[in-house]
């Protein structure tokens, strides 16, 4: 106490120094990061290293100790990282050009190897990107285009993933997933010809639908005519001679407009006295 009274400034300075040492030997490691400890540049240990069976809260995140001025830290993301492969034109075995988008997700599982071989996560994804592109081209180049539109697509993605995983392991990374996002026909001629094919297919469909409609309509009409003819025959066939007479009478009425229809022209009838109708008119006896 007396020494404190005598040299307060010195004591304050000393306290600050101790604080600085304590602070620089303490590090806060968040759950989302792994800390690679380098002692004079040599990787010594990893704080909060990724472990697939981990539970949050028990992984070494939180306050951590390191030797001040001797050890320094390299931060490595612990989360699942991703990179998109820019659109690429891929030529399939059946000479279809397809534009493919893909993305990969990965995680740094070996920060030491990552640090030694790449330096940072960014450099890892920069290194993996072209490899994903070439793996994709290789894999799709071996297959016809239609594979992309079939369940075999999974096989393709798995193959790509396997070949990418081999390279990723060299960078201390693990590939979580590779996925083809889009597979499209490129703009211009291929897309246009696909549209054309769709268009003509539809036109053909339209014509056949219409023709089918006409066919069915004709059948319906024919059937109806047949039914009608049958009805007529069944009825009139009982006495063709009487039908002839009956129909003639009907016909006269119609033609001369006596059945309340309007005849087209007026009629002047020239009757010979021999006419059967005038038989009684002439006073003859039949």
């Amino acid at each position, binding site marked *: 106490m007396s020494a404190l009274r005598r040299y307060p400034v010195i004591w304050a300075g000393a306290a600050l120094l101790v604080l600085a040492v304590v602070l620089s030997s303490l590090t806060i490691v968040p*759950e989302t990061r792994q800390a690679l400890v380098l002692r004079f540049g040599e990787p010594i240990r990893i704080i909060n290293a990724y472990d697939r069976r981990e539970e*949050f809260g028990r992984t070494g*995140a939180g*306050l951590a100790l390191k030797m001040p001025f001797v050890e320094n830290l390299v931060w490595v993301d612990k989360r699942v990282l991703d990179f998109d492969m820019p659109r690429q034109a891929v030529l399939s075995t059946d000479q279809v050009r397809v534009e493919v988008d893909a993305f990969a997700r990965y995680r740094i599982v070996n920060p030491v190897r990552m640090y030694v071989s790449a330096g940072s996560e960014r450099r890892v994804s920069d290194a993996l990107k072209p490899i994903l592109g070439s793996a994709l081209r290789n894999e799709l180049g071996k297959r016809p285009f239609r594979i992309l539109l079939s369940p075999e697509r999974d096989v393709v993605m798995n193959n790509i993933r396997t070949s990418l995983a081999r390279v990723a392991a060299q960078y201390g990374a693990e590939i979580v997933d590779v996925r083809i996002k889009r597979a499209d026909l490129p703009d211009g001629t291929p897309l246009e010809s696909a549209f054309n094919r769709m268009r003509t297919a539809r036109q053909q469909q339209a014509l056949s639908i219409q023709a089918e409609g006409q066919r069915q309509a004709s059948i319906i*009409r024919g059937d109806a005519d047949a039914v009608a003819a049958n009805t007529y025959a069944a009825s*009139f066939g009982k006495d063709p001679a009487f039908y002839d007479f009956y129909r003639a*009478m009907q016909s006269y009425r119609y033609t001369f407009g006596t059945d309340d229809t309007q005849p087209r022209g007026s009629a002047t009838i020239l009757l010979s006295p021999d006419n059967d109708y005038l038989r009684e008119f002439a006073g003859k006896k039949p």
Partner: protein
Amino acid sequence: MIAGAVLSEDGPWGGGSDGGEGGKTPWRAPAGGAGPSALDALIQRGRERLGGGNGGGGAPGLHIGGAWRWGILALLLLWVALTSAHTIGPQQRGVITRFGKYVGTLQPGLGLSFPAPIDIVSKIDVDNIHVIDIDTGVDGATGQNLMLTGDENIIDLAYSVRWNIRDPELYMFELQDPDGTIKEVAESAMREAIARVTLDQAIGAQRGQIEQQVAQRAQETLDSYHAGVVIQGVAIKQADPPSEVVDAFKEVSAAQQNAQSYLNQARAYATQVKAKAQGESTAFDAVYAQYKLAPEVTRRRMYYDTMERVLAKSDKTIVEPRNVVPYLAPPAAVAKPQEPAK
């Protein structure tokens, strides 16, 4: 005991402001229950050294120092109170990290934690349903979101994905870009599902199935990433043929309409023809039945009936002499002389 003393002073603030006006050191020292602290002593010694002759000012200076101390204490208390008590809304969870380490999750209600630099509480909305819209127009130039279907046709699709957070810890710690990941996974799943159906199925019948497949597939993928999110649903808002071929599709529906109208016309004709046949034959049958009862009479009657009607309505000329050809005025010529008379 010290706390009791502080309370008896009517609070730290009251004591401090009073001290500035009253300026009675001897009263304050015993009331505090303890002598000046080491820090006070340090400050006072410093003042004495630097100030030298200003001995009288030393006493009020000590009081201002006390107020300062209480002020800092109060701020500290306020800070602790504000940063260690958290109200978590019913839709939220509070993820606590202690120096970056996950220590627990606060459930809705009032939650306590250590004060701020030690514990950080991130409130995460878990029940809030987020909607990602993937609209037509993402292709920029064409203004459409074109996808290939299983029969190598192209469809223009717009859909939305609804999701919420299931595990706030996983959501916070597992993925670098959870929101972007969800979108990409959903898009990839959608394109995959569309690639497995034909254009007609995608446009019409199987939309519901596709939605379910995509939701399921996206969920599986996200689970494999430990994303901690739940896909609540995928809704296809629009599934149309691309605008370039839409006319051809309209032709098809026009053709369907046409075909339908052909059928309708044919059916109308059929009904009419059959009904006519039915009617005529029934009428004939009825007359024939009567005719059979008295054939000759009926026949004559019908003949006279008809002739009567026919001849009643027409102009008649009876040519009497067998070998005289009568002059017959055509109906027009006959009509003409009558006109002036009218």
